[in-house]
């Protein structure tokens, strides 16, 4: 038996979300008396692979094949399923990010594993195996039972902390069986956003809505993001008006995020918007309308003109940061 974690890497490096996955899997493994095996696909150095052991991975299976440098859902599915069969896996843990959403459902069909996506906590019960997730885009929680012998989960980002343990990780190379038939998509071009904090990774997110009045007013918002080391987001009308790119849209039909701190600037807080940000640990709202629904979701608020408040907020943050150093 084993709990198998698939950890994606970014240019050979892991992120916090991978360590969250491994920590989560280790807690499950302890409960069912088995061990955590991690599968990594791509060119990742041994020192980086070894880091997964800090969170409880006992075996790290490294697959480094040039053909697998770019994500092909079918090929990745075959590789992960081969490892799962070899390791007699009963529980698989993916991240609930783009790659996890692309691969986990396919793997789950291949292994006939019931799948629950966006799990937010450890199983509340093992017999029957019951996990909790958010439904109706953050408006409620549901407890879901997985009835199949093999079980698949994708873990919601920033919902489970890191648990460090004694490093016992063994690294093992594995060469999967693959044929050309397994590769039927071809990545022709890659565009990477560089020098910006990514929305899904950000601890702090600064977001603007229609109250910002126009794309020309984003300067101070960007400056605030910059001094806080935050990522930038926006509400749906802002993306629809093309004031900002749609990748920045957070909300029900955009990105669902769970940062530690979310600034809603000139955002009224329609129910669809709140669905995308309600998992934030703290929400700050600045809006001139004191009836705006965002104040019901917010922890801290200022009722006033965002254009006047932003420059003051930036200097206050700078002052605080200066006093810290």
């Amino acid at each position, binding site marked *: 038996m084993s709990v198998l974690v698939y950890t994606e890497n970014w240019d050979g490096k892991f992120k916090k979300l991978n360590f969250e996955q491994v920590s989560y899997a280790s807690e499950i493994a302890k409960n069912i008396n088995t061990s955590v095996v991690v599968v990594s696909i791509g060119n990742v150095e041994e020192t980086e692979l070894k880091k997964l052991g800090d969170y409880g991975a006992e075996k790290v299976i490294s697959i480094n094949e040039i053909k697998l440098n770019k994500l092909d859902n079918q090929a990745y599915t075959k590789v992960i399923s081969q490892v799962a069969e070899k390791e007699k896996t009963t529980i698989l843990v993916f991240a609930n990010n783009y790659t996890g959403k692309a691969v986990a459902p396919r793997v789950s069909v291949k292994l006939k594993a019931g799948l629950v996506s966006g799990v937010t906590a450890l199983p509340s019960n093992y017999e029957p195996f019951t996990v909790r997730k958010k439904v109706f885009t953050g408006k409620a929680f549901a407890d879901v039972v997985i009835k199949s012998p093999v079980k698949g989960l994708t873990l919601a980002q920033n919902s489970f902390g890191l648990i460090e343990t004694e490093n016992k990780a063994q690294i093992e190379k594995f060469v999967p069986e693959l044929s050309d038939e397994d590769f039927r998509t071809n990545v022709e071009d890659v565009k990477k956003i560089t020098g910006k904090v990514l929305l899904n990774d950000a601890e702090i997110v600064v977001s603007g809505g229609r109250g910002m009045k126009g794309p020309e007013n984003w300067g101070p918002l960007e400056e605030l993001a910059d001094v806080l080391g935050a990522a930038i987001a926006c509400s749906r009308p802002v993306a629809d008006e093309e004031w900002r790119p749609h990748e920045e849209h957070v909300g*029900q039909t955009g990105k669902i995020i769970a940062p530690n701190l979310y600034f809603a600037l000139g955002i009224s807080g329609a129910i669809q918007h709140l669905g995308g940000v309600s998992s934030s640990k703290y929400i700050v709202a600045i809006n001139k309308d004191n009836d705006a629904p965002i104040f019901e979701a917010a922890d801290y608020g200022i009722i006033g003109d965002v254009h006047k408040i932003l420059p003051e907020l930036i200097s206050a943050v700078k002052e605080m940061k200066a006093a810290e150093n």
Partner: protein
Amino acid sequence: MKVLICISNVPDTTTKIRFNADNTAFDTAGIQWIINPWDELALTRALELKETTGDTIEKITVVAVGLKDAEPTLRKALAIGADDAVRIDAEPKDAFFVAEQLAQVAKDYDIILCGIEASDYNGSAVGGMLSEFLNIPSVSSVSKLNIENGDVKVNREIDGGSETLSTEVPFVAIVQKGIALEPRIPSMRGIMMARKKPLNVLPAVETEALTEFVSYELPPAKSACKIVDTENVKELVDLLHNEAKVI
């Protein structure tokens, strides 16, 4: 080429969510049902492609797994412009169950579009599962879909960027925001025509769900928002730094 759009029948996204007395089922009383927003964008993109690529696309079909009460949502898709509709007669129990049902229809199509998730159970699973049942390629988080000289080109979003891909057909595109800008609204003429378009009902295949939603809970009420005076913005920074400890 034949295009299939898999549709989920979901509660309107502004719905206030309620459950039954023992919190074991979603209370559907008074709910307005809509096409899942991502599926609606997928349909819109399929129609745009049909209009702009000559006779490349011969037919656009919409399919849903659902009981009779899902038919108004399929009729709406026909009114928006789909050529025909299929309802697979079963209650959609879980993603695995739904994907296996859809596979029986999808096997006859070249481009199969699914929304990246449904706004009710947020499973993000049906499209990927369907592609594995059919053993065909899938591309997820698709934000652009084009057909150039009969070849399919897609863009997918990745963490920190985007990629352009080519793929064989048949394939499943699991689409997200960006695939089309605004969903289309049915015209009066569209609504009239939709009544005459075929809506075929197929029996469900024998299969079982692997997961079961057993109970629900609403999130605890949030404590009141602390309002900081406009004249004292510095206090907000103090609170975030010293009380919340998040900056």
